[in-house]
């Protein structure tokens, strides 16, 4: 996962590789969940409406600090929207889905929450400036806590997609 994220971050610095890097990176990350049952990833369909709604709430929480301070943030350019969705889903499936499930099996929920958050933060070390990594880690921790508290990955996916599209 780290190799995919770091390769994506480096590739996106090259001209014309931003969108392919995001789409292919998202797809490669999603492969981490290959052959893992959806329910184990947190992708069950029970109370689906509430899961989606939880994702909307997570999206609101993720965007709130920016919304309070900045009123006229331009939306993401249309060409990048699909790529943003792809990488958001890929990251959630990989980190809060496959990695979380593996770590939970190995050492229980605390290891899954902390381990997936640490890996998520490291994965963003090349794509984000150092001062941003605290906020990245906090977002990862929040999403992992949701994954644990609600046994749900739909919410983090929806929230992550909304946050990436809006900022």
């Amino acid at each position, binding site marked *: 996962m780290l190799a995919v994220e770091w390769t994506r971050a480096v590739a996106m610095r090259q001209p014309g590789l931003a969108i392919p890097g995001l789409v292919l990176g998202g797809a490669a990350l999603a492969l981490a969940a290959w052959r893992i049952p959806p329910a184990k990833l947190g992708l069950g369909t029970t109370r689906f409406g509430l899961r989606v709604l939880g994702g909307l*709430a997570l999206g609101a929480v993720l965007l709130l600090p920016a919304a309070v*301070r900045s009123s006229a943030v331009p939306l993401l350019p249309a060409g990048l929207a699909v790529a943003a969705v792809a990488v958001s889903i890929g990251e959630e499936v990989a980190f809060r889905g496959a990695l979380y499930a593996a770590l939970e099996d190995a050492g229980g929920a605390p290891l899954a929450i902390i381990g997936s958050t640490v890996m998520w933060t490291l994965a963003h070390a090349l794509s984000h400036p150092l001062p941003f990594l605290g906020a990245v880690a906090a977002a990862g921790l929040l999403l992992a806590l949701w994954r644990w508290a609600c046994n749900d990955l739909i919410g983090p996916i929806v929230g992550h997609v909304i946050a*990436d599209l809006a900022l």
Partner: protein
Amino acid sequence: MKQGALLALGVIFYAIAAWMVAPGFYDGFNPSPYAFTCPPPQAGDTKPTSGHVDIRVVGGVSEANSAFTNDGQLVIGFLPGAFIAGGKTSISVDIKPLDTCPNPTGIRFVTNIYQVTADAMLDPSKPANLVLQFSNLVPNPSTVYQASDPNGQWSTLPSQPGQPFTIASRITTFGYFAGGYPATSPPPGSFTIGGGQILPIVVAMLIVVVVLVGLPLAVIPRRR
């Protein structure tokens, strides 16, 4: 109960951490916060940097090279022979951010203004490629503007979007450069509602939907 409390702590922790940095998740779209000469309220106060390059002249022809500011906010690429060398053995190019922020009538600048100088003129048949980075905290620029005096007349250069959050233009003379858009038109490419209050409205709508739809959804399964 324990889950809810930890989740609430996660929300608080995130809010504090996110408050300490400029807004943006930047999933690879805009990795470096823009350093503004005159920062908007939501931006940091990092100052923009200057740049310098010496370009060798071999056999009367200047080599291909690039000049850029140390923060990468302005990059100029020069083709081989881009300069009229005139017997020089090297050509010096300097880029300096203007430390003031003029607001010429009819133009809204969204980048810093940079002064680009060189000790040789450009060959007009081999234009240099100038790329300006801009911030995600401001509307996208529609064009690159050029002037010989920052307080004088600004002209537009044919421009096109480059990589995400950059705008590129070809230049044949040096001077002052900045990205912006006509002040009389709405910001290019922007979708605004409610007078540009996009993000607060998005968040408000999310909260309203969660409250209005969430309560019934949460109650219905319990009745079954």
